[in-house]
C-alpha cells in the first residue's frame, strides 16, 4: 500500500511541464541558415581524406541577467545577449575517429566556441561565420584523427573495443516558450535588504547574495537530418555566508532557490527568515566541537542523500567511464547484479521539468548530441540495469539514451540529468530518527550522525587512485542515544561505493530536490537529484582538512559598526 501511494505521489509531484505550442522547425531562420551551410560543406567534407563523416551545429541564443550583492551594495550587475556556435566534425569513421582519447593526452574535450553575428541581412554574414567555423572544425578533426591513428598503433589492446560513435536518430522538433520576466529592481532591493542582515555578526567573514537568469533557445542541426529548436531557462536566487574558526576550518551556510516564475520565489519574509536561520547555524558551527573520526549509524537527510547518490553512484554509471581504460569501472561488469540495497531504485529522468513544485535544473528535451531525452532506469530494486549513454557506445549498450551533455565549448560525454532515488518502502521521517536511535543502541555506539546538508565533494573514478569518495557535509549533528542533538564541525564523509550503498537500512517519505551544477570532463552542466532521507547502518566520518591561514586579525568592519552614519 505504501509503495503504490508513493508512486501516486511521485506522479503527482513530478511532471513534464511542456505547455507551450510546438513550432515549425523549417521556418526558423537559424535552422534554415545552418542547414544551408551544413549541406554545402558536408557534401565536400565527406569526400576528403580522411573524410568528415559526421557534422553537427549547436547554436545557442542566450539572454542572461546577473546580479550580485553584498553588505548593502551591488558588486556585479550585467545583462547580456550572446549567440554562440559550436561545430562538431568527426573525421575517420564511427569505429575510430578524432574524438578518441590519446593515451598520453587526457583532455581533448575543448571545442572552439564562436561568437556569432546577427542575421538581419538575410543571414549572409551569419553563414560566413558558420563557414569559417566549419573549416576550422574540419581541419582540427583531420589533424586530431591523424594523431589518433598514430596513437592506436602503439596503444595496448582496449578492454572495450566498441566504436567511437553511433549515429543519432534523426529528430525534428521545435518548441517555443514565453520569455521569463523578473522585476530586477525589486530583486535588487530584496537582496540588498537581505545582505544587511549579516552586519554586526563578527563570525560572518564574507557573504554573497545573488540572482541569475539565463534563458534562450538551443538549435541543433546535423548531417543525419536532425533539426531541433528547444527553449531553456534557469533562474536562481540565493546566498552564501562564510566563516572560519580560530583553528583554520572554513565554514559556510547558504541557500539557493531555483524558480521559473516570480511567484515561485520565496516571500521576502521567508527569505529573510532563511538568512537568519543560516546566520544562526553558522554561529552554531563556529562554536561547535570538532568531529572525531568514527564509524557510526547515520541518517543522510533527503538533499544530502541526493548529492550522495549523484557523486558516489551517478558518476560511476556514466557510459564512457565503462569504456576508457583509465577509469576504475566499478560497475562495468555489475549489470544484473545487486549494487545497492534492494529497497532502492534509481532512475535518471531528464524529461521531468518539476518535482514537488520545484523546477528541476536537470530538465532537457534533447541532449547536446541531438538525442531525445528519456528516463533511464539505472538501478531497479537494488540491481544495476543500465548505464547513462551518450553517442559513444560501450559493450552491451549500442546506442545513446539521451544523456550526451556538455557545457558550451566542450565535447559531450554521458552525464546525469535528474537523478531520482525511489524507495520501495518508506516511513515518516520521525520514525526514521527513532530507528537511528535504536541502531545506535544496538551497535553500542556513543552517538550517531545526522547529515543535514552536503555541499559536494569528489569521487575518484580513475584507476590512478582508490575507488573511493570524500564528501563535504556543511551541517552535521551528532545524535546521542537519548535523542539529544549536537552540531559538530569539520566532518567529512568517506567510503567506497560498493559498500556504502548496501548499508541503507530504511528510507523516509520526505523526497526533496537538490538542484546544482555538476562539473566533469565535458564541463559544468545543470543537474538535479531527488531523494528521500535514508538510514545507513554505518557511515565513516573523518576530519576535514583545515586551512593553514588564521582568520583575519580584526573583525569585519560592519561587525563593529564604527565609522559613523554612512
Amino acid at each position, binding site marked *: 500500500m505504501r509503495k503504490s501511494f508513493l508512486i501516486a505521489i511521485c506522479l503527482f509531484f513530478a511532471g513534464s511541464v511542456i505547455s507551450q505550442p510546438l513550432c515549425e522547425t523549417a521556418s526558423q531562420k537559424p535552422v534554415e541558415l545552418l542547414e*544551408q*551551410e551544413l549541406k*554545402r*560543406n558536408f557534401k*565536400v*567534407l565527406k569526400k*576528403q581524406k580522411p573524410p568528415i563523416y559526421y557534422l553537427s551545429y549547436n547554436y545557442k541564443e542566450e539572454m542572461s541577467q546577473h546580479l*550580485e*550583492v*553584498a*553588505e*548593502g*551594495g*551591488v*558588486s*556585479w*550587475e*550585467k*545583462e*547580456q*545577449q550572446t*549567440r554562440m556556435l559550436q561545430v562538431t566534425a568527426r573525421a575517420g569513421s564511427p569505429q575510430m575517429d578524432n574524438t578518441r582519447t590519446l593515451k598520453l593526452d587526457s583532455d581533448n574535450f575543448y571545442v572552439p566556441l564562436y*561568437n*556569432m*553575428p*546577427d*542575421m*538581419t*541581412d538575410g543571414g*549572409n*554574414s*551569419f*553563414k*560566413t*561565420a558558420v*563557414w*569559417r567555423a*566549419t*573549416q576550422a572544425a*574540419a*581541419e582540427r578533426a583531420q589533424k586530431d584523427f591523424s594523431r589518433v591513428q598514430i596513437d592506436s598503433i602503439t596503444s595496448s589492446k582496449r578492454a572495450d573495443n566498441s566504436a567511437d560513435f553511433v549515429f543519432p536518430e534523426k529528430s525534428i522538433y521545435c518548441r517555443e516558450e514565453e520569455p521569463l520576466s523578473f522585476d530586477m529592481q525589486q530583486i535588487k532591493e530584496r537582496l540588498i535588504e537581505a*545582505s544587511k542582515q549579516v*552586519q554586526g555578526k563578527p563570525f560572518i*567573514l*564574507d557573504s554573497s547574495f545573488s540572482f541569475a537568469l539565463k534563458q534562450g533557445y538551443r538549435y541543433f542541426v546535423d548531417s543525419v537530418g536532425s533539426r531541433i529548436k528547444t527553449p531553456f531557462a534557469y533562474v536562481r536566487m540565493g546566498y552564501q555566508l562564510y566563516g572560519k574558526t580560530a583553528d583554520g576550518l572554513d565554514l559556510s551556510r547558504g541557500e539557493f532557490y531555483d524558480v521559473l516564475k516570480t511567484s515561485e520565489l520565496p516571500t521576502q519574509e521567508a527569505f529573510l527568515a532563511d538568512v537568519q536561520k543560516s546566520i544562526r547555524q553558522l554561529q552554531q558551527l563556529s562554536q561547535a566541537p570538532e568531529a572525531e573520526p568514527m564509524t557510526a549509524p547515520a541518517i543522510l537527510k533527503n538533499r544530502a542523500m541526493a548529492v550522495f547518490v549523484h557523486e558516489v553512484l551517478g558518476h560511476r554509471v556514466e557510459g564512457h567511464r565503462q569504456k576508457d581504460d583509465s577509469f576504475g569501472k566499478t560497475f562495468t561488469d555489475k549489470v544484473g547484479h545487486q549494487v545497492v540495497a534492494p529497497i532502492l531504485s534509481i532512475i535518471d529522468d531528464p524529461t521531468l521539468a518539476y518535482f514537488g513544485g520545484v523546477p528541476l535544473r536537470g530538465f532537457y528535451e534533447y541532449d547536446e548530441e541531438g538525442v531525445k531525452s528519456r528516463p533511464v532506469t539505472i538501478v531497479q530494486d537494488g540491481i544495476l540495469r543500465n548505464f547513462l549513454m551518450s553517442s559513444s557506445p560501450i559493450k552491451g549498450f549500442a546506442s545513446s539514451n539521451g544523456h550526451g551533455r556538455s557545457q558550451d565549448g566542450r565535447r559531450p560525454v554521458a552525464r546525469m540529468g535528474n537523478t531520482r532515488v525511489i524507495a520501495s518502502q518508506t516511513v515518516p521521517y520521525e520514525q526514521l530518527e527513532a530507528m537511528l536511535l535504536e541502531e545506535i543502541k544496538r551497535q553500542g555506539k556513543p552517538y550517531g550522525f545526522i547529515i543535514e546538508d552536503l555541499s559536494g565533494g569528489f569521487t575518484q573514478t580513475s584507476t590512478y587512485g582508490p575507488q573511493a569518495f570524500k564528501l563535504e557535509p556543511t551541517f552535521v549533528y551528532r545524535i546521542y542515544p537519548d535523542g539529544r542533538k549536537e552540531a559538530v564541525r569539520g566532518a567529512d564523509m568517506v567510503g567506497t561505493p560498493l559498500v556504502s550503498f548496501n548499508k541503507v537500512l530504511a528510507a523516509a517519505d520526505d523526497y526533496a530536490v537538490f538542484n546544482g551544477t555538476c562539473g566533469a570532463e565535458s564541463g559544468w552542466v545543470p543537474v538535479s537529484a531527488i531523494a528521500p532521507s535514508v538510514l545507513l547502518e554505518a557511515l565513516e566520518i573523518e576530519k576535514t582538512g583545515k586551512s593553514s*591561514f588564521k582568520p*583575519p*586579525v*580584526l573583525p*569585519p*568592519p*560592519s561587525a*563593529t559598526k*564604527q*565609522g*559613523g552614519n*554612512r
Partner: protein
Amino acid sequence: MKRKLFWLFAVGLCVLPAAADELPNNIYFQAMQDEMTRSLSKLRVKGSPKPYYLAYQLNYDHVYCAGASLGELNEGKDSVSHVLSASVAVAAGNGQNDSMGFMNDRFSYMPERGYDVPNSYWGIRHVLWSLTDDGYVKAADSYEKKQTYKRQKNMIEQYPDFSKAPQASFVEPIAGFPKPPAEQMQQWVKTLSAQGKEVPYLENFSVRICFSQRDNYYLNSAGGHYQFSSPKSWLSVAANLRNREGYKEIISRNIPLPEDHSLIPAELQKQTDQVLQSARQLFEAQKPEPYLGPVLLTPRAAADFLNELLVQNVRNVTPLLSFLFENDPSAGSFRNKAGMRIMSNVADIYDKPLLRRYKGLPLGGFMPVDDEGVKAQNLTVVSAGRLQQLPLSRRSGGTGQNSNGHARMSFSTLPREALSNIVVQPKNPLSSEEMEQKLLDRCRELELEYCYILQEFPQEKRPTVNLAERIYTKDGHREPVFGIKIGEKTTRSLRDILAAGQEDTVTSFQDPESREYALIAPSLLVDEIEIVPDDKKPDRKPFTPKP
C-alpha cells in the same frame, strides 16, 4: 579614565591622514579613510612589526562596446558594465627598515587585489578590511625574510627603505559615466564592417567601438590622495584573410578616439579605410628576402621600436631584493646608464605625466600624483643622446636620490618606477617626403636595390601580421611585404637613428606590470636593421568557398 581618553585621542591624531580635511566627501574616501584609520590603530599581530604605511586605490570602470562583423552586430545589446576594484599596499616596520622592495616568491610583489567590490560604504570597507588583513600578514612575513636577506648579504643601510616626501593631492569632481549612444554606435559598426562584404578575399571584417571611463580614487596613510576620471574611447578594426600565397593572416588596429566620446564619422571611415587598404596590400604581398640596411619606421612602428628598446629598459629602476635571484629580471637595463649616450642626437625624449591629452586624444599615463602620494614631475629622459633623468620613487633612496613622482602601481605590481607619457621631440623634424627621400639617398649610397618601410615593428608573440613595404631605389615604386622578423634586436639601433619626422602619433602601451602609458612618436629613419622572413607556413585552401 582621563588618561585612557587622552591616549585614544593621541592615537586618533597619529593615524588620521594628514590631509584628511581636504578629502572628497563621498563613500569611496569615507570608506578608505575609516578603514585605514582602524587598521593603522588596531591591526597588529603579536611579535610582528605593525603596519606603518597603507595605500588604498579604488578603480571604478565603466565600459560599453558595440561590435559587428560583415555588417551584422555580434556585440552591443549588453548593458553597460560597471566594475569596482580595489588595490591595497601594506608596509610593515618603519620607513628606515620595512617589508617592501622584497620579493617573497614569484608572484608576491603585487598589491592585494579585490574585484567586484560591493558599491556601498560597508561593502567597500569590507573588501579593504579583508585585503589589508591579508596584506599585513604577508608584509609581516616579508619583513622577517628581508631582514634575514640583508643580514646574509651584509647590507649596511645608509638610506631609508622608504624616504619621506611631501604628499600631494589632486581632486576633480567625477561625473557619472554618460549614457552611451548605443544605437548610433551599433549603426556605425554595422555600416563600417559591412564594407568587408564587398571584398572577395576577406574571410571576416569586424569593427568594434568602445566607450569607457575609469574613476580613480587613491588615499595613503601619509595623506596623499587623488580623485579623477579617465574617459576613453577606441575603435578596433580587424580583417581576416588568406592571401595570394595561401597564408591565413589577421590585420588588427586599435585606434584611440577623442576622450569626449564624440563619434566623428569621417574619422571612423578614414581609419577603417586604412585597414581595408592594408588588407589589400597584404593580399598581394610577398615574403621578404633577408635584408640588412636602412629602414624607415612609420610613427606606429617607431612607437613600437622605442617602446621595446628604450621605454622597457627605463622602468623599475630600483631592483627588488629576493632569495630567488641575484639580479632582478624585471629591473630596467638602463637603470645604471644615467649620463651615458644611449641614442643618436636626433631627438630629445621627455616624460610628461601631467599631459592629459594630445591632439584631442587622451593619454593613458596621465598622473598628477603618483601612487606614493608624490606630485608627479616632468622628466627629461634623453637629451643630446644621453640618458638624463630616470623615473624615481620613494624607494629609489638607495642612491640618495629623491622621488620625482613616478611610482606607479597596477594590479600586478606594488608601486615601482615607471614612465607615463613619453614624448619624442625631434630636433630637426623632416616632412614625410623628406624622410622618404633621405631613406632612398641612404640606400643608393649603400648600393641597395631596395629599402624597407615598416608599418609595424615586429613583435615575437603578436598574433597579427607584420606588414611592410619595399621601396625601390631605381624609381621609388613600392611593393608590399608581409611575414617579417627582425634578425636581432639590440639597443644599439637607438644610436643608429638618422632622422625623425614631423608627423607623430599617439600609441598606448602596457608594460609587463600592466601599467598603461602613452608614447608620442614621429617616424624614424634607422640606419641598419636586419629583416628576415618569419617561419610561418602557408595554409591549405578552404574545403569550400566562402558562401
